[in-house]
């Protein structure tokens, strides 16, 4: 417990350092002005969200093959944390888009895919809440999670046909693209606290789910006794 508290304190410190870097170290964008600074929150949130969903997928596949409840706990923890980060990404996106693009929302590939991704994982958690028996819940939600994750590249590919308004990949986006070196460094630095936060949240959520699992076993033993 002490270890986790120390780790949580470390995450808070990292977050504070990232906020400082985002506001005071990164230079102001020549065209977008101050508002661009939201990318230091928006981009790491998007990437961390995707990574969480990938962890969820790994948990799902492992559960189906191994049938160990631990993988199910990892799956649900990762899905919830991923959903939190994706929500943050979907909220910060329009805040940036309104002053820069002049609109809150556009149906372009990355925005739409993220919205569909969000809906898929909301459905995943909804499905879990509607199945009582733990093993059945674990298996069926894992299978749905696998189908959902396979669907993600297809969703993205299909929506790519519409002309896309989202900024093209700036980092490694080919010739002509590129971020100011300081901005780039800050952006990478901002990803670290998000990843640390992801680990912290997933760990706590996993522990909660494990306790729920144990409690359920005890409860069922009492019922049969």
């Amino acid at each position: 417990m002490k270890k986790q508290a120390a780790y949580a304190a470390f995450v808070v410190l990292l977050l504070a350092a990232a906020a400082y870097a985002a506001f005071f170290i990164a230079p102001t964008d020549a065209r977008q002005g101050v508002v661009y600074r939201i990318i230091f929150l928006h981009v790491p949130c998007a990437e961390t969200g995707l990574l969480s969903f990938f962890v969820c997928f790994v948990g799902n596949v492992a559960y189906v093959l191994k049938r160990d409840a631990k993988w199910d706990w990892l799956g649900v923890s990762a899905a919830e944390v991923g959903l939190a980060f994706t929500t943050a990404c979907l909220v910060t996106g329009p805040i940036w888009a309104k002053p820069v693009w002049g609109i809150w929302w556009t149906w372009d590939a990355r925005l739409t895919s993220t919205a569909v991704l969000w809906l898929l994982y909301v459905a995943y958690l909804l499905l879990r809440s509607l199945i009582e028996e733990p093993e059945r819940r674990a298996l069926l939600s894992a299978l749905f999670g696998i189908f959902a994750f396979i669907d993600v590249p297809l969703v993205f590919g299909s929506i790519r046909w519409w002309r896309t308004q989202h900024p093209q990949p700036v980092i490694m986006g080919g010739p002509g693209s590129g971020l100011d070196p300081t901005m780039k460094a800050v952006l990478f630095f901002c990803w670290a606290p998000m990843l640390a936060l992801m680990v912290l949240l997933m760990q706590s959520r996993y522990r909660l789910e494990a306790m729920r699992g144990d409690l359920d076993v005890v409860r069922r033993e009492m019922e049969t006794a």
Partner: protein
Amino acid sequence: MGLGLLSNTLVLLGKELRTELRSRELLTTTVIFILLVMVLFSFTFDPSSSDARRFGAGLLWLAFLFAASLMLQPCFLREQTNDTLSALRLAVSDPFAILLAKLAANTLFLLATELLMLPVFAVLYNVPVFPVFGQLLLVFFLGSLGVSVAGTALSAISAQARMRELLLPLLLLPLLTPVLVASTQVTAGLLDVQPFVQWKGVGFLAVFDLVFLTALWLFGEYLLEE
């Protein structure tokens, strides 16, 4: 194994078709639902013929998708009343045959209702469809196959949950976004004043179908576990 799977699937498909032809419950309700959507849609947009060319493809596919999410409900629910799914599992050597038969039946039912409603759409919205009938058939088939593959898998999942009637559309519709997008794009091209086939979209639908068929083949047996 391959031949056994095929013959098992064909026998089970026969059973699915017989069950439906005796009651005709699924086909009737689905046809009426799609008709209803078409009529109600005209009240919300009051579309002219050129509007219909623009929105028609989207209207058709949304109606098909919603209808499918209703039509797929009884797919596994039906087997629960007398626990016939256990009997089916004992009867076949490869449980994939059960899924394959059900998805083939669902594709056929969906395709049949779509083809029945296509002339009605053409008349109600003044869009000529017969010159491109062959191409439309291809899109309808690939789209319906995609809907049925994903839908059969998810109906096996939702049948085991509470609130299953509400749950299936919530699980299925976001998953079908790629099918909706691709089918609508290709159909819109075909309903254009100068019709054209978007082969990219046709190929995309085929890829979707293949990906989900493979996933179903890999994970299908777990869906049918007791």
